[in-house]
């Protein structure tokens, strides 16, 4: 029986310092810390963590390899089930997945599975460990539309099976939300995302950027004219939702997607970039998910005083617990149980404040969360010169509208059966099928689709 030790804390940048820079907040474990943390795992016979992992990573096995100091073996074990461990180790909501179910969590603190996964993946990157060797080509071509986690994972598995894969991406840079949405301080671009993408290029996968499928080419054209035997659609759920209240088109109101795209994809936080970003003194972010936390913490780093307005209570905040914790440490204020009713402007049409109403929690709604109800007459105003709306996203209908026979539900999500869409040869996965979800689910669906495509093509 190993001696009972406390969870090994992970080193982080000091909150005061990091609030002024875009460098990664968390430093991660070193080898000693990782081995020590790994020693806490009980190697359960029926591991609850694995059951709670959306892609069933063999968690006790990889942790045991870490404990023994065989980091390369640990990497190979994770790689069986996940192709983006350096990313998932950083952004998965572990507290509701593996760590949330870990047996040690019942009485004390769960094993720090996410941080161990991250350590193993980072270590493999530094030591240049090859995920797998370059396979022989089988002569069949597959097109992947969208280069987010779903598309990357699908392409990777297909290439391993010998397919000649081309990824088509509408933006000028690959990575999807990993590149344009999640900020540098949470997910470094050069050190992590671009390395994962390089891994794909090294396997011979081609990435064609600036191709907006549905406009530049259609799915039918790819199938009929360009000789692709199958197409995977992993185009995400990128269209931002707005509040639908007065004042939403005032100068100084942005979707979180716009704000984050300017900062991450266009690098507007740096003086070198030509793309501007709105520099406000006070910023009010509406919403409580990861997207809201990312927008709030970006605004803070750009020098603003930031308030997050969310209509339910702290317990219901959908963001990862770690992000909320970090946001608070950095000095972001939370106005919980409050909902915007109007954005106020000055006489020239620039934002000067936001009017909210206080809420209380009523009965649980269809999502199981207690639904907020406004308290009559409790309106109040927050002074601000910028409002960032982070209410979620919906699906762009372009692909469905330009691909005859491709069926969707009312909200535009592609209908699939085991990743196969209603069109023969067209497969789909990730946010475009599930609606906005998580990196690990998108990655998992991309891999399932790769298996389905292989079966479809090889008969």
């Amino acid at each position, binding site marked *: 029986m190993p001696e009972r030790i406390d969870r090994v804390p992970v080193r982080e940048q000091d909150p005061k310092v990091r609030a002024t820079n875009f460098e990664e907040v968390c430093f991660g474990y070193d080898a000693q810390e990782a081995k020590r943390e790994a020693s806490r795992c009980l190697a359960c016979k029926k591991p609850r963590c694995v059951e709670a992992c959306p892609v069933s990573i063999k968690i006790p096995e990889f942790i045991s390899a870490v404990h023994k100091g065989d980091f390369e073996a640990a990497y190979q074990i994770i790689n069986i089930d996940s192709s983006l461990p350096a990313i998932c180790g950083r952004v998965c909501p572990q507290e509701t997945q593996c760590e949330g179910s870990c047996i040690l969590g019942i009485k004390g603190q769960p094993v720090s599975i996410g941080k161990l996964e991250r350590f193993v993946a980072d270590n493999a990157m530094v030591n240049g460990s090859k995920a797998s060797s370059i396979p022989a080509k089988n002569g069949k071509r597959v097109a992947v539309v969208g280069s987010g986690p779903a598309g990357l994972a699908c392409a990777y598995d297909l290439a391993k099976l010998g397919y000649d894969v081309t990824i088509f991406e509408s933006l000028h840079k690959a990575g999807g939300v990993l590149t344009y949405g999640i900020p540098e301080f949470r997910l470094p671009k050069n050190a992590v995302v671009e390395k994962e993408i390089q891994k794909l290029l090294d396997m011979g996968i081609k990435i064609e950027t600036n191709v907006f499928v549905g406009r530049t080419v259609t799915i039918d054209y790819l199938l009929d004219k360009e000789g692709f035997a199958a197409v995977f659609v992993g185009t995400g759920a990128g269209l*931002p939702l707005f509040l639908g209240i007065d004042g939403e088109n005032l100068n100084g109101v942005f979707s979180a997607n716009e704000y984050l795209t300017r900062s991450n994809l266009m690098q507007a936080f740096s003086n070198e970039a030509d793309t501007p970003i709105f520099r406000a003194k006070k910023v009010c972010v509406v919403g409580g998910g990861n997207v809201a936390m990312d927008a709030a913490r970006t605004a803070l780093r750009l020098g603003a005083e930031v308030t997050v307005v969310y209509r339910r209570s702290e317990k219901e905040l959908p963001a990862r617990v770690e992000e909320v914790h970090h946001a608070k440490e950095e000095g972001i204020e939370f106005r919980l149980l409050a909902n915007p009713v109007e954005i106020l402007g000055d006489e020239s049409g620039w934002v000067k404040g936001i009017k909210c109403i206080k809420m209380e929690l009523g009965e649980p709604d269809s999502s199981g969360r207690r639904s907020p109800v406004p308290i009559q007459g409790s309106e109040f105003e927050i002074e601000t010169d910028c409002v960032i709306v982070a209410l979620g996203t919906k699906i762009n209908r372009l692909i469905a509208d330009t691909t005859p026979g491709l069926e969707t539900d009312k909200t535009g999500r592609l209908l699939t059966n085991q990743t196969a869409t209603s069109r023969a040869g067209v497969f789909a996965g990730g946010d475009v099928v599930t609606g906005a979800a998580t990196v690990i689910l998108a990655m998992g669906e991309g891999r399932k689709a790769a298996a389905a495509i292989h079966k479809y093509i090889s008969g």
Partner: protein
Amino acid sequence: MYKIIKKEQLTPLIYSLEIEAPRIACSAKPGQFLIVRPSDNGERTPLTICDYDPQRGSVRIVVQIAGVSSNKICMAKEGDLLYDVAGPLGKPSDFMELPEKELRSCRYLFVAGGVGAAPVYPQAKYLFERGAYVDVIIGARNKDLIIMEDEMRKVCSNLYICTDDGSKGEKGVVTLLMERLCNNGDAGNSGGGKYDMCVAIGPMVMMKFAAITAKKLGLPITVSLNTLMVDGTGMCGACRVSVAGQTMFACVDGPEFNGYDVDFDEAMRRQTLYKKQEQQANAEAGLDFLNGRK
């Protein structure tokens, strides 16, 4: 990377560039635009497709220097590479949905303001080549800002030119010409001066007054909105405009909208969002002279 295969200077501030982009050349349609990112730290800059040639695998843009990004694009030389060119974006013009037979009996009035002649060109060309009756008004502040006159003349029934200072064509603004053509007809206007449809493309304020005039004349009008944009694919909402009280994204729902329904005052206000930063960037890039301009 996308190669500039031909470059021409049209006026001191306006350039025409032909760019190698085979995929776009095959799918481009009148009314659509591109996003051009000139360099590594460059902005994603929206520019209308002025012409396209699937055989040569090229598209043409006509760009006016308005700030740092358009300047970067215009200063690139023949043979240089632009980092990114994405498109075609936005919806094609409405008339692309009409059967060609119907187009033959259509009568269009195009109103182009300044560099707006470039986006008007592919539309006029498409319609004129299919037998439609096409009149074009080009208006500008002075004669040095009138572009594409000869090319335009080849793709329309009548070309009218007006300048604010009278240095070329008639003296006056485009709306005056619109009214006259619609009310009285014109000596050279064998069509009798009545149109089924007007399309106005130019500075936001010109489109605003063109829409007011068209409404007065009972003439339906389409305008093409040059809002701020980032991705151009519907992902950010930077380009949102109010049309008939509804929020629309110019890059995917437009860029063309019914001119009667557009809230132009809001659209003009939203264009000024980064004015301070743009002016500072101009000063740093030695483009101070742009800051005084409207």
